[in-house]
């Protein structure tokens, strides 16, 4: 496929076997060489045991998905060998400890790199020696100098003292030497680029986006796969002056964030589906009181508790239907980690402008994935626009009305503490002055006026967010439509299909509500065969899109087994559709890698 360097290392083992450490060390090595990384970790809700499979794709250009390949499989236990050796093709490598692991049936041309760990390293007791030894083997295979590994090990273990560092270096060295003698290295070694990259998870990107947006109040209740945002915030709270609170439940979280936001702080909180369900009532209240707050829903496989460690795009309708009644809010689904980072300040600016809640929809794939990022793309001082916010009295106060029915529907918003602007915000319907009209006289004319005032706010919204665009060949045979995190995998599937001679373009939808319906119709107006790709069972986006535009796709590619799409899954779906092999209209790829 690609001509440059594109190599995927897969590490498998049980929880508690310490997969994270070699993963981290390799990630550091790669990004310091300026290579791009896209890592997906398939894991379970278990602290020890089970089966973890970490897929690390390294590329000399941006890696938009974790790809389709296994070029090197590191087996930390027999189970990994048994499950995955058959996925390896000719020229690939299997690295394992021959003391405990035996190869199984495999394709021809696989390089079996069995290391007798005890014999080579002399380590009998240390369960983790096999991990460090494996790194020595891998570094050799990649054609790197041992010094690269040595400095990475030093960095990793220096907190634990010199003895730990030197014992690890020595183990790695012995394995490296053994590998040089016994195992073939890559024909063309791993390249390097002059500009080192940084590495983050999507949750860290979301948290940093919040920090960049000026969030000074963050609260949460832990819930996978969103908890990483809380962890980053908690760690950086002191340095950045962010008040971080863990609250008793998600209802408390949402309401506390609303209180802080009303008081003038930018406030954010993140959760996953079940927690978001508990927040919905508060989200509606923020809209009614016209308080800007940002809520993040990191989707995992549902319904209900579902599969907490697996990904899905199954909460779109929950987000669309969050809370009773008609009300103003913004919904956006970023496409990848950097997009998530950059979107948060944008959403805050929009939420502040329109004085309404903003909902950011991420998923496990983005949030818990590990990705490289060019450091210069980490802009921590994006523009901050707080809209019609009154933070001081500015001379003689005039008769202030919190919900003044202005031409654009947006009323100047004073924060508590400002003299002369005392007012009450209310979740009951109220008049321009914040006085309830749900009580003594439920005036239907005033009621209608206030509904229309709030709705009017959003009239110019679509001029402020980019419309969905058609990317790729115009006049293509197939147009793929995705939303949120599938953007990358769709792009890579398109590359594969192009190699097949199929002309494919795509629309990657990000801004969901209010929706750019007309632009979408325009973008798809020339489409010959439209296929919607989404990571759920019922086609949540397809139904939404049809409701907003009337567009019924010609076919669907869906996956709902908890594992994310790989590019070939999408490409296979396109081929099947093009060849008329999808009678029901919905193609569901087989998940080959069973974790």
């Amino acid at each position, binding site marked *: 496929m690609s001509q440059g360097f594109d190599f995927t290392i897969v590490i498998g083992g049980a929880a508690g076997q310490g997969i994270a450490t070699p993963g981290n060390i390799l990630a550091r090595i790669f*990004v*310091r060489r300026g290579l791009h990384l896209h890592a997906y970790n398939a894991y379970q809700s278990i602290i020890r045991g089970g089966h973890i499979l970490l897929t690390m794709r390294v590329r000399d250009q941006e890696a938009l998905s974790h790809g389709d390949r296994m070029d090197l499989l590191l087996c930390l236990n027999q189970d990994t060998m048994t499950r995955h050796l058959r996925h390896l093709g000719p020229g690939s490598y299997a690295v394992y400890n021959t003391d405990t692991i035996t190869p199984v049936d495999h394709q021809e041309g696989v390089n079996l790199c069995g290391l007798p760990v005890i014999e080579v390293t002399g380590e009998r007791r240390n369960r983790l020696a096999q991990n460090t030894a494996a790194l020595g083997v891998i570094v050799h295979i990649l054609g790197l100098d041992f010094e690269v590994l040595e400095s990475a090990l030093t960095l990793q273990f220096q907190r634990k003292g010199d003895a730990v560092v030197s014992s690890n270096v020595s183990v790695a060295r012995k394995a490296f030497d053994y590998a040089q003698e016994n195992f073939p290295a890559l024909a063309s070694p791993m390249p390097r680029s002059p500009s*080192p*990259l*940084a*590495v983050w998870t999507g949750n860290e990107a979301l948290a940093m986006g919040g*920090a*960049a947006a*000026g969030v*000074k*109040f963050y*609260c949460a209740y832990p819930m996978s796969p969103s908890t990483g945002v809380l962890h980053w915030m908690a760690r*950086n*709270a002191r*340095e*950045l*002056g962010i*008040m971080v609170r863990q609250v*008793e439940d998600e*209802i*408390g979280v949402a*309401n*506390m*964030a*609303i*209180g*802080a*936001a*009303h*008081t*003038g*702080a930018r*406030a954010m909180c993140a959760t996953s589906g079940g927690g978001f369900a508990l927040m919905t*009532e508060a989200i509606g*209240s923020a809209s009614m*009181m016209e308080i800007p707050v940002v809520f993040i829903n990191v989707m995992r496989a549902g319904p209900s508790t579902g599969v907490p460690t697996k990904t899905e795009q199954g909460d779109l309708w929950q987000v669309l239907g969050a809370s009773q009644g008609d009300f103003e809010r913004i919904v956006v689904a970023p496409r990848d980690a950097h997009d998530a980072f950059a979107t948060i300040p944008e959403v805050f600016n929009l939420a502040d402008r329109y004085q309404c809640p903003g909902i950011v929809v991420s998923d496990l794939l983005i949030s818990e994935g590990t990705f490289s*990022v060019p*450091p210069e793309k*980490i802009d*921590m*001082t994006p523009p901050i626009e*707080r809209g019609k916010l009154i*933070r*001081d*009295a500015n*001379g003689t106060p005039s008769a202030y009305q919190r919900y003044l029915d202005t031409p654009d529907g947006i009323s100047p918003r004073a924060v*508590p*503490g*400002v*003299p*002369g602007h*005392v*007012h*009450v915000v209310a*979740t*009951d319907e109220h008049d321009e*002055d*914040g006085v*309830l009209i749900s009580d*003594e006289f439920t005036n239907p004319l005033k009621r209608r006026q206030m509904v229309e005032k709030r709705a009017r706010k959003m009239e110019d919204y679509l001029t402020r967010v980019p419309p969905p665009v058609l990317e790729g060949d115009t006049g293509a045979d197939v147009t793929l439509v995705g939303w949120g995190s599938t953007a990358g995998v769709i792009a890579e599937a398109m590359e594969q299909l192009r190699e097949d001679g199929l002309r494919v373009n795509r629309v990657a939808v990000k801004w969901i509500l209010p929706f750019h319906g007309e632009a979408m119709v325009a973008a798809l107006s020339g489409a010959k065969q439209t296929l919607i790709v989404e990571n759920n069972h019922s086609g949540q986006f397809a139904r939404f899109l049809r409701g907003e535009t009337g567009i019924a796709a010609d076919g669907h590619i869906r996956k709902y087994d908890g594992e994310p799409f790989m590019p070939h899954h999408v490409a296979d779906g396109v081929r099947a559709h093009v060849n008329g092999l999808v009678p029901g209209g919905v193609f569901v790829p087989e998940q080959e890698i069973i974790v």
Partner: protein
Amino acid sequence: MTIDLREKPLTAKDFKGKVDPDWCPGCGDFGLLRATQTAVAQLGLQPHDIVCVSGIGCSSNFPGYFNAYGMHTLHGRALAVATGVKMANHDLTVLVTGGDGDGYGIGGNHFTHTARRNVDLTYLVMNNQIYGLTTGQVSPSSSVGMKTKSTPFGNIERPVNPITSAIMNGATYVARGFSGNLKQLVTLIKGAINHPGFAVIDTFSPCVTFNRDNTYQFFKQRIQTLESEGHDPTDWKAACEKAMEWEDRIYTGLFFENPVEKPLHALEPILDDAPPVARVPEPITREQRDRIVARMM
């Protein structure tokens, strides 16, 4: 940040809201409203220094009748919202007003955890032992046997005791008032606002429309003040014991005070210099950014 408009000392009248209360004539909530207006005036507070947060209920309409910044939020959620307000700007005086259903029913978990955290709020509960706004159902503080629209054969669940519950959960100022005793209420409210920590005043506030059992008469016959008995508010056991009395004698006054425990905002070093809201526009510095990015490489 704000212009100081504090020229003239204000009176209770200056704390009248934009509209008159729509409570039923004789509703106990009028008493707490008047007492609060008097207390804040006597303390020399300005309307813009106060945020009054409520949930939903007859009693929760309070902020609309009180001249201060107000938030009339969701049923049961006032304490959570108020904690957010206080954490964003601890220079504000934050009052929380609402009903027994709002606070001890649906809002019970926030009550427990706000007490545990000792957030510096003044929580004024208008306890009428009934759901007023929804026209008379049993509340978590209704007595056993009480007949309501949802318990036509009499309530079979024992009521919560907000006083012992607040004490045991960690509230640091716990009192009981009666809307028929304004003088005591004013004193208790002033004490609560001055107290640095979570202060709860559960106030008997008769619902003259739906609660025929716990009337002014009922309370007048039973109420005795703790002051008159020289109760020691640092003795939690005595406080709980007195709070449990009900049949013949019912105490009002300050049951419990913990003068030592620090409030939440004082325990968080981030808040030492200034409240978050004062730092809102403060951008991430170049050095901060570089430190963060360096850790990622």
